[in-house]
C-alpha cells in the first residue's frame, strides 16, 4: 500500500509543483485510507483517488478594481470546483494575501470529505483571492467584491456551486457578493451561504458548532448506554463554540466547570449554571471583557492566568468526565492528554479545529475512550450551510427549533456513519478512522455509480 501511496505522491508532486500544502493533504488522506484500499481494490482499479485529487475544474481569473484614489489594482481570483459527485460544489471564499492555487486546492480537497461526512448533498470546493481587506474602505471592499463576482457569477449557481465565507469574507462581503450576483443574473437564489438573516440566512448559525459538538458527545455516550446527565465537563475557550457548548450541556443536564480565554481560565467547582452563562455571554459578547471578571463576580470560581512557561495547560487537569476543547489548535498536547486520562475523562469531543496534537490523539485512541475528532464533532457549522441551502431551495425559513432539530438529526447521522464505518473496517469505536473513511466512501461510491466523468 505504501508503495501505492509513494508512487501516487511522486506523480502528484510532478503534476502539481510548488503546491506543498496540497501534497501534504493528499498524502494524509491517502495514508488514512490504507484500510479501504486494502479491502476494496475496485477503488484502485477505478483510480478513484487519482480522480478525486484532480479538481473537476479550476477557475483562475483577473479581478481588476479601482481604489478610492482612482488607482487601479489587479488581484487574482480563484474557484476550485473540486468534486460534485454528491451535490453542488460547496466551500468558502477566502480573501487574504496568502491565497494561492496550492492552498486553495488543499482546502478544497479537504472540504470534499468534510461535506460528505455531514451526510448532506454537498460537493466540495473552495475559492478566493489574494486581495488584502486590511486597511481597505467599505467602498473598496465593495468594488472588489463586485468585480470578483462579475466573473464568478457565470460559474456558480444554487444547483452548481454555492460558495460561503471564510477568512476575510464575512457578512459584509457575502452581502456585496450576493448583491452583484443577483444583479447580473436577475434572480434571487441561494447561491451563497452565510447570508444576512433578513435575506435568506439561516438561524442557529452561531450556535451550530457548539450544539452539534454536544449532540455528538451525547451520541458517543449513547453507545455505552449513558447520557450527559450529571457529567462534569471541561470546556476551553469562551467564544461562540464554547458558549453554546456550555448552553447545550446545561440543557442536557451536564455540569460544565471551566471556560477560558487567551489570558487564563476559570474553574468553577459549583458548575457554570444558566445565570453564570448569561453573565459570561454578556461579558464576552457585549462588554468584550476578560474571563477573569467571571471569577471576580462568582466566588465559587478560581481564576488561573495563562502561564506560557508551563508545558501543559492546567485546565485539563481537573477531575471530570468529558472534555470539550473549543478554543484553538493544539490546545491539548501529549501531557494534557495524559492528565485528562488520569483524571477520569473518557469523552473528548472537539469543537475547535484540530485542538489535539497527534500525540494526544494517539493516546485517546489507544485508551479507547470516546474521542470525537473535530472533522466529525464540529461538522455542525458546515451542516448549517447545507440547511441554509435547503431552506433557500424551499423558499422557506425554518424556525430555530426546526433548524436545531435538523442539526441534531444530522449529528446523529454523522455519528452513526462514523460508528458503522469504523465497525465495518475492523476498528470499532475508532471515530478517527470512522470519520476519515465514511467521508471518502460516500464520494467514492457516488463516483463509481456515475461512471467515468
Amino acid at each position: 500500500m505504501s508503495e501505492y501511496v509513494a508512487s501516487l505522491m511522486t506523480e502528484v508532486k510532478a503534476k502539481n509543483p510548488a503546491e506543498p500544502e496540497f501534497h501534504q493533504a493528499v498524502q494524509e488522506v491517502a495514508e488514512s485510507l490504507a484500510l479501504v484500499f486494502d479491502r476494496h481494490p475496485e477503488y484502485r482499479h477505478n483510480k478513484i483517488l487519482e480522480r478525486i485529487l484532480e479538481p473537476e475544474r479550476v477557475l483562475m481569473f483577473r479581478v481588476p478594481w479601482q481604489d478610492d484614489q482612482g488607482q487601479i489594482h489587479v488581484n487574482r481570483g480563484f474557484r476550485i470546483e473540486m468534486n460534485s459527485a454528491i451535490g453542488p460544489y460547496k466551500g468558502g471564499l477566502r480573501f487574504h494575501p496568502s491565497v494561492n492555487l496550492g492552498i486553495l486546492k488543499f482546502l478544497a480537497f479537504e472540504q470534499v470529505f468534510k461535506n460528505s461526512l455531514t451526510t448532506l448533498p454537498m460537493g466540495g470546493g473552495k475559492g478566493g483571492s489574494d486581495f488584502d481587506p486590511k486597511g481597505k474602505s467599505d467602498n473598496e471592499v465593495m468594488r472588489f467584491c463586485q468585480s470578483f463576482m462579475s466573473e464568478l457569477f457565470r460559474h456558480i449557481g444554487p444547483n452548481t456551486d454555492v460558495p460561503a465565507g471564510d477568512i476575510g469574507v464575512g457578512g459584509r462581503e457575502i452581502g456585496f457578493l450576493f448583491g452583484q450576483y443577483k444583479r447580473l443574473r436577475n434572480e434571487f437564489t441561494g447561491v451563497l451561504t452565510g447570508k444576512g438573516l433578513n435575506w435568506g440566512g439561516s438561524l442557529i448559525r452561531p450556535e451550530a458548532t457548539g450544539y452539534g459538538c454536544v449532540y455528538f458527545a451525547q451520541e458517543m455516550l449513547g453507545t455505552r448506554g449513558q447520557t450527559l446527565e450529571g457529567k462534569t465537563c471541561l470546556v476551553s475557550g469562551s467564544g461562540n463554540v464554547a458558549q453554546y457548548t456550555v448552553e447545550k450541556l446545561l440543557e442536557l443536564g451536564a455540569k460544565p466547570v471551566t471556560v477560558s480565554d487567551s489570558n487564563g481560565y476559570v474553574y468553577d467547582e459549583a458548575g457554570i449554571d444558566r445565570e453564570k452563562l448569561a453573565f459570561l455571554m454578556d461579558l464576552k459578547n457585549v462588554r468584550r471583557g476578560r474571563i477573569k471578571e467571571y471569577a471576580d463576580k462568582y466566588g465559587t470560581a478560581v481564576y488561573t492566568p495563562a502561564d506560557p512557561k508551563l508545558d501543559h495547560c492546567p485546565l485539563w487537569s481537573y477531575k471530570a468526565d468529558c472534555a470539550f476543547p473549543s478554543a484553538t489548535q493544539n490546545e491539548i498536547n501529549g501531557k494534557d492528554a495524559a492528565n485528562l486520562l488520569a483524571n477520569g475523562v473518557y469523552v473528548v469531543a472537539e469543537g475547535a479545529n484540530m485542538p489535539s496534537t497527534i500525540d494526544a490523539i494517539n493516546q485517546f485512541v489507544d485508551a479507547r475512550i470516546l474521542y470525537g475528532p473535530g472533522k466529525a464533532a464540529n461538522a455542525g457549522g458546515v451542516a448549517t450551510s447545507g440547511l441554509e441551502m435547503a431552506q433557500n431551495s424551499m423558499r422557506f425559513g425554518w424556525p430555530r427549533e426546526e433548524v436545531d432539530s435538523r442539526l441534531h438529526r444530522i449529528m446523529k447521522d454523522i455519528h452513526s456513519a462514523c460508528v458503522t464505518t469504523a465497525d465495518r473496517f475492523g476498528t470499532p469505536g475508532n471515530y478517527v478512522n470512522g470519520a476519515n473513511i465514511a467521508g471518502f466512501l460516500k464520494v467514492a461510491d457516488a463516483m463509481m455509480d456515475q461512471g467515468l466523468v
Partner: protein
Amino acid sequence: MPSSLVRAGFRDYQDLMRYRILHILLVATPYDRFLLEEAGELSERMLGEFRNLDVHYAPGLTGVSTGAEALEQVRRQESINLIITTPHVADMHPARLAAQVKQIRDIPVVLLAWDPSELNGPAARQGSSIERAFLWQGDARILQAIVKSVEDWRNVEHDTRSVGVQVILLIEDNVRQYSSFLPLMYDELLDHSQRVITEGLNLSQKILRMRARPKVLLCTNFEEAKRAFQTYRDDVLGIISDVEFPLKPGEQPHPEAGVRFAEEVRKHYQDIPLVLHSSKPENERLARQARARFLLKGSPHLLEDLRKLLVQDFCFGPFVFRREDQEGEVDRADDLRSLEQKLHTIPPESLFFHGRHNHFSRWLKARTEFAVAHALRPRKLEDYKGDADKLRSDLIQAITDYRFERGQTVVADFDRDHFAGLGESGSDFYRIGGGSLGGKARGLAFVRRLIAQHGLRNQFDGIRIAIPTTAVLGTDVFDRFLNTGGLRAFAIDSQDDEELWRRFLATPFPEEAERDLAAFLARVRQPLAVRSSSLLEDSLHQPFTGVYDTLMLRNNAWSVAERVHQAVRAVKRVWASTFSQHAKAYLQATAFRLEEEKMAVMLQGIVGAVHGPRFYPDLSGVARSHNFYPTSPMKAEDGIVAVALGLGRAIVEGGACLRFCPRYPKHVPQLSSVAEALKSTQRDFWALRLDGASDSDGDGDGDLSMREESFGLDAAEADGTLAAVGSTYSRENDAIYDSLARPGPRLITFAPMLKHGDFPLPEILRTLMDVGHQGLGAPVEIEFAVNLQARPREFGFLQVRPLALAREMEVIEIGEVEPGAALCWSQRVLGNGRIEGIQDLVVVDFQRFERSRSREAAAEIGRLNNQLLASGTPYVLIGVGRWGSRDPWLGIPVTWDQVAGAKVIVEAGLRDLKVTPSQGSHFFQNLTSFNVGYFTINPEDGQCLLDWDWLDAQPAETARDHVRHLRLPEPVLVKMNGRKGEGVILKRDMEEPKR
C-alpha cells in the same frame, strides 16, 4: 474681516525691523575711546540704553585703534555691521577707511566727530563713503540714535509696505542740530510708544509692537526729503523740518527751503502735521502761512514743546474729540476700549470731522494698531451720505471685532475686579500672579494665537474651535508659596512623598492668588482640570509629559469658598508633585537641576457635558502629523489620529481607541475584519463622576486624582452619546453595521463621523495639523476634545507640541550585516544615528517572561534602571510585549522613569501575541524626544531578528526573577537610519571609530 486683519498684523510684527545692528566696531584712538568710556562707560551704557528700550536686543561693541585693525576686524568678524569712527585715526583717514571697508563688505560707516571743525574735512563731503556724520556732545545717547537712524533708513521700505509703519521726516542739515535733536526724538518716540502700547497686551507682545514704532528719517536737503516724502507719503505721521537747508546736496542752505517743502506737502495733504523749527523767531510767520506749527530752536523749553507737539499732533496722547473748526474739546479717549465706548455718545459733527481728516486711523497707527487702522481708513465719508449712525456703528463694530480677535491672541493678566465671566472681549485665558506661564500653558497660549491667526474659530459651520477657558497661576505664585517657612529647601531634600504632601497642605496659600482664584471660580462653574505647567514641560527637547500630576475637579460645590478650597488643594497637589520621588527620578535623567524647575498651574475648563452623574466629552483624541507606522495608502506625512469616546485617558495611556488617518478616514485598518474590530475597539470609556464623595473628603490624602471612572458602552448609549460614534455587531450575520439601528453588541467605530461625515472630524484635524505644522515648523502632536452637546458644537483644541523627530538627520547607512554579527536587526526602528560604547544590556528573556507577572518585571527593571542611572551607565533594554503598556497582559507596564536610562529599547513579540507598536502617547513622546532608539521585532514579519540564543548564553551580572543584567566584554554598536526606519545592533563594534 477682523480675523484676517489680526492675522496679517501679528505675522508682520514678527517680521518688522529685519535689519539690525548686531555688532558695532568703534574705531578711535585709545585716547578718544578713553574719553568716550570716561563719559559713560561705553559698553555698559549701550547695553543699559538698549535694555530699557528694547528688551531682547543690544548690539555688541568692539573697539580698535587703527584703520588696519579695523579692516582686520571687519574681515574676521562677520557680525560687524556698523562702523563708527572718529576723525583721529592714526594710520588712515576716515574717508579712506570707509572706502576700504566698502571693498570688503557693504557696511555703513559713520563719522563721530569731537568738534564741529572736524566736520569740514573731506570726510563729511559729498561723494565720500561715510554715510553720515554726527557730533559728540558728551551724551552717550548719540550712539543709540546713530544705530536707530541707520536701522530706520534700512528698514523703512519693508516695514511701511508690510504693515504701514509710520514715518516721521526730520529735515535738518546742521550736524550739531540733528546730533542733539535725534537722540531726543528717539527718546520721546520710544517713551510714548511704550506708554500707548499697553492695552490688553502682555510683555512679549509689547516688545513685538515696539518694533512697529514710528521711524525717523533724517534728511539733510530738499531733494532727499522730497524723495522720502514721495516714497512714504501714505505713511507719514508728521514732518519736523528746519526752515533753512540746502535744496541739493552740497549746496548752500536756502533761507526758505522748509517753507517751500511745507507748501508742497500741503498741496495734496491737508492733514499731515507739520512742524517748522528755526533759530529765527521771525520765521514763525512763514510757518503759519504754511499751516505748520513752529518751534524756536533757542527756546529753553524746546524739549517740552516738542513733547507737546508729539502728543497733540502726532497722536501720541489720548484721542481728543473736537467739533469741526472748534478748538474746544468734546471728549477724550485714552485707549481703544474707551474709544469704543465714547464713540457711542460723540456728536455726529465731531464724528464727521475726525472721519474726514482720517484722525481715527492716524491715531490708531501711531499706536501701532495698523490692522484696525487699515480697516477704518478706506471708509470714505461720502459713502455714508451724512448717515452718522451708520458711520458710528461701523466704527464701533470694527473696533469691537478687532478687540475681540486680539483678545484671542493675547494672554491677559487676570483682573479680578473686572472679570465678568467667559468670553467677554473674547478672552478666555488668564494669568494669575506674575512669572512664567510654564511650558504647557505657553503651548496653549500659542494654540490660541494659531486659532486667531488662521481664523479657525468659525471656519467650520456650526462648530466653534477654541481652547477651553483657562486660568494660569504663574510661577511667581509657586515661588511665593515655596518661600514660606523654608518649604523649598525641605521639598528639594524630601525623600517622602507623604510627608511632603502634609507640609504642602499645612503651608498657607498666597493670599492674593487665592483672592484671584475666588473671583475666577465665582464665574467658572464647569469641571476643571488642574494641570501642571512647569518651565520644563513640553519644551522640545525635554518634554516631561506625564511626570507631574493632573487632577480633575468636579467644581460643583454650592459655595464658592468650598470650590476655592478644593482648587487650592489641587494646586498644592500639583506643586507638590514637582518634588515627588517620581519627578526627582525623572529629572535625574535630564540635564536639569530641580532648583531650576518652576511650576505654573493651569485651571482649565474640561471640554464636555453633563450626562446624569457623569461628565465627559463626546470624544477626545490625539493627532500626530507624522505617522511612524503608515500602511498603504497612507503616507507617513498624512499623520495618524487616535480617538476615543469620553475623556482622553484611554489614549494617553495607550488603551483601546480608534486610530485613523485623517486623509483616509474610511480606511481604518483596525476595522478591516470583524474579529479585529471586536478585539481592538473601545469597550468602555472614561468620564468624570459627578456624584459620590466630595473632592476634599478627609483632611489627609483624599485621593483627588481618582475622579475619573470607566463606564461600559451601555452607559454611553443611555446617555445618548454613543449614536455619534457607534456601530453594531451582528453575531448572526458576522458583520458590523454602522449606526445603532439594529440590536446587538455596540462597537465604537466613529463610522458616523469618518464614513458619513456627520461631524467633519477628519477635515478639522487635517486643517489643524497643517496649521500646527506651519506654526511650529515641525511635525506636531495635537490634543483635542469635542463636545457635540453644545451649540455651536465645541471643538476644544487643547494642546499642540512638536512631535520630536530628528529633523536634520545624519544619514546612517546600515550596510550589509554579516550573519551572526547582529544581536538585533529590524526594519521597524525609530530613531537615527550611531550609538557607541554601550556595554550593558537589561534583558527580559523571552523564555523567562510570564505575562501574569509583568508588573513585577516592571519593578525589577525600575530598580536596575536606578542603579545604572546612578552610576551613569547607559544601557540597551530588551524585552517582550509592549513597553509601557497599560494592560499588563500585553507587555511590561513600565513608566517612563523606570526606563529613563535606556539609550535603546527593543520591543519583541510575545510568543502568542503579535506586538502592535503601542504609540501610547506619553511614553512615545518621551521616547522620541529623549532620542531613544526603538526597535520593534516581530519575527513573523520576517524583516527582523533578535538573537535570543546568544543573549541566553551571555553570563549575567545580576539575574532576578524576570530580568537579567548583562555586562558585555565589548560594547555593542547601534546604527539606526531614521529615514528608512531600519536599524541594527551589532554584537560588538567592529568598525573603525570614525572621526
